[in-house]
């Protein structure tokens, strides 16, 4: 219904959004999350044609936004912001009445039908008794509902919400989000909203789009998005993720320690250890490792793996991957992978490979399709040795040649030449995390 195709947006000369593609289906609730200043609101503004895109296109119902007039757009979608200008002496009814403006010529007055739609919008948001009340007399949550009512009076198909809960207390936040969810269900409204609260995003969205540094970092279902690893990478905080009734529940624990790198990853030492001689074969002359893998859901999962030496061993920091697996409790693959024997792990490798190939191409998976094949082609069938079994498995890696690492029954593509490599160079970022004993 609404698609962003390789959209780039600039403010003056500064590039804010680069190459963002996003596909929103009718009736979906999509939340856009990400740290401050990454361009989340900018995307909403571009969708509503408040700002122009520098490159790419935004398609709404097979029509390009750029070719639609502001007025046409305002009949199809509407936006509610975190804070809105509420004139001190405007009543709720008056405000909602303005929602009919897109349907009026500049000299036209409100018709009976308009009045009915206004009433309907007030009823939908439970504000009918507040019709003659001044906006300024409303609580934050009621005011936000009033603005949503105005948006409804526009009879839109898409509701754009820019941090609709930011200035509200907890109860009002939920009240507004419940209202949004209900409108989504009952009126089949498509909702795209920018949220800051990860739990809200996880609870109320069909899909979550993570924007990081102006790019789509991930776009998938909440349970795929909300992982310790991703939260660590994007926000630079340590978090725990529980699953309650199939929905992720996120507990933010603290800000990640590592300085600059903390924004990019969640580093926890001692998740995987490599024998020093193997490690030296692996990373001869390099300082850190970039690893990519495929999640059980088939989406690519990128991890950075710095390392430290300790007691004759070299430790890779792979906690994000481990955490990711631990969190997908429902996934049978994880159980098997926790099995403390080598043949089981081998089987997993084979099974995952078959499963993955069977899935065909997933969006964003380009380049990962043949990672298993590539692995075997380079190294032959891998050998595994279990190091320990805690919440997840650790493998000592035995590698004949090259730069591939295997763990958790998955293939990790170690790409020393990748452009990400420099970003996480341990020395450059002064990683001072001390390894704990394995």
């Amino acid at each position, binding site marked *: 219904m609404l698609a962003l195709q390789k959209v780039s947006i600039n403010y003056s000369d500064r590039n804010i959004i680069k190459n963002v593609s996003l596909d929103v289906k009718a009736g979906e609730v999509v939340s856009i999350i990400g740290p401050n200043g990454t361009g989340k609101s900018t995307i909403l503004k571009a969708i509503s044609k*408040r700002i122009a895109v520098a490159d790419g296109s935004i398609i709404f119902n097979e029509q390009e936004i750029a070719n639609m007039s*502001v007025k046409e*757009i305002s009949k199809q979608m509407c936006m509610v*912001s975190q804070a809105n200008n509420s*004139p001190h002496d405007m009543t709720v009814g008056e*405000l909602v009445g*303005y929602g009919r403006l897109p349907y*009026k010529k*500049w000299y036209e007055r409100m018709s009976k039908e308009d009045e009915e739609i206004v009433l309907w919008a007030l009823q939908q948001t439970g504000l009918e008794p507040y019709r003659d009340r001044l906006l300024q007399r409303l609580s934050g949550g009621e005011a936000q509902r009033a603005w949503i009512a105005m948006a409804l009076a*526009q009879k839109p198909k898409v509701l754009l919400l820019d941090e609709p809960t930011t200035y509200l207390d907890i109860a009002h936040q939920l009240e507004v989000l419940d209202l949004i969810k209900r409108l989504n269900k009952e009126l089949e409204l498509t909702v795209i909203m920018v949220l800051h609260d990860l739990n809200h995003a996880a609870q109320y969205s069909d899909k979550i789009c993570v924007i990081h540094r102006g790019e789509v970092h991930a776009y998938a279902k909440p349970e795929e998005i909300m992982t310790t690893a991703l939260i660590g990478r994007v926000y630079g905080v340590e978090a725990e993720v529980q699953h309650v009734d199939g929905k992720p529940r996120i507990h933010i624990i603290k800000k990640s320690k590592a300085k600059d790198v903390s924004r990019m990853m969640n580093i926890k030492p001692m998740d995987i250890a490599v024998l020093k001689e193997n490690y030296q074969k692996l990373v001869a002359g390099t300082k850190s490792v970039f690893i990519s893998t495929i999640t059980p859901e088939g989406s690519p999962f990128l991890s950075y793996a710095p390392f430290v030496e300790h007691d004759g061993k070299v430790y890779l920091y792979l906690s994000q991957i481990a955490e990711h697996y631990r969190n997908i409790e429902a996934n049978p693959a994880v159980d098997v992978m926790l099995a403390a024997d080598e043949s089981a792990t081998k089987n997993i490798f084979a099974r995952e490979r078959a499963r993955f190939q069977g899935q065909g191409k997933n969006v964003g998976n380009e380049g990962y399709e043949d990672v298993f094949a590539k692995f075997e082609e380079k190294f032959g069938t891998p050998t595994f040795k279990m190091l320990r079994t805690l919440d997840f498995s650790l493998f000592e890696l035995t590698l004949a040649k090259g730069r591939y690492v295997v763990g958790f029954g998955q293939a990790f593509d170690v790409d020393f030449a990748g452009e990400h490599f420099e970003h996480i160079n341990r020395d450059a970022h002064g990683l001072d995390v001390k390894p704990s004993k394995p």
Partner: protein
Amino acid sequence: MLKGSKTNKSLLLAAVCLLLILATLIAIGIGSVSVNPIVTLQTLLGYGDDTSSVILWDIRIPRVLLALIVGANLAISGTLMQAVVQNPLADPGVTGVSSGAAVAALFIMLALPGASSYIPLVAIAGGVVAAAMVYGMAWQRSTGFQPVRIVLSGVAVNAIFGGVIGLLSLLYSDRLPAAIQWMNGSLAGKEMSDVLVILPYSVVGWIIALLSIRQINVLRLGEQTAHNLGQNMNRVRLLLSLLAVCLAAVSVSMVGLVGFVGLVVPHMARMLIGSDYRHSLPLSILLGAMILLLADLIGRSLFSATQIPAGIVMAMIGGPYFLYLMRKGGA
């Protein structure tokens, strides 16, 4: 602000309307020959004697009508500009129209006094050129007309024209007294033909302004919301500014620079009746007309030896009021 229902607000409007009519009748009567309101009414209805007919129709009524029209124009213009740039300190002068008109008119008065019959036309041209400069400078391709940029380029253009006015005054200081009346907005010596020149433009302007009230109102909700409601903000800003410039330009061209009506009256209206332009714009029109009428009345009757231009009276009433607004935190 008047709290309460629509009826209360309508009552207030009706009351001000009545007051305005009363003030008009009194203003027509007061002067070197005073005519009492009943005779005034008789004369207006065509039953007066010859002397009072001549005095009223040839001298007083044109002057009073002009005060009413110009006052209304400037009040609307100020209201529009305050709405467009979302700044309570805006007045018609923000668009550069006053200083542009002043430069053009002064140039004719001081440098080419022979062509003084063209002053109204030249003043309009000067005002429009200055406004075009302001909006041309304010325009940005990426963001369109941003209120802050309109205000800033207005300030800059006003400064430039202010400099030119200073220069002209210095170069032709011997002829300056002739220009002082105009520079301070004087309604003296106007005839019915002058009224008839600006009346049609003004009435058209009023009608358009009244029909645009909803568009003006939407601006109160902020730029983002107005955009979401399908308003092409650049177009709305430009058209409303254009209306403000036209109304101010025809007024300034006729009576010179009248300060403060455009700044103060919209505030008065808002304080009396609230920020909804459905009420405050009509009230602004009435109040603008009334205040300029009264300012002119005071100016021409208080010191009967000299006629004090309405602009001076207005500024001396408007200035303190403006300071009061600032102290009160209303501005």
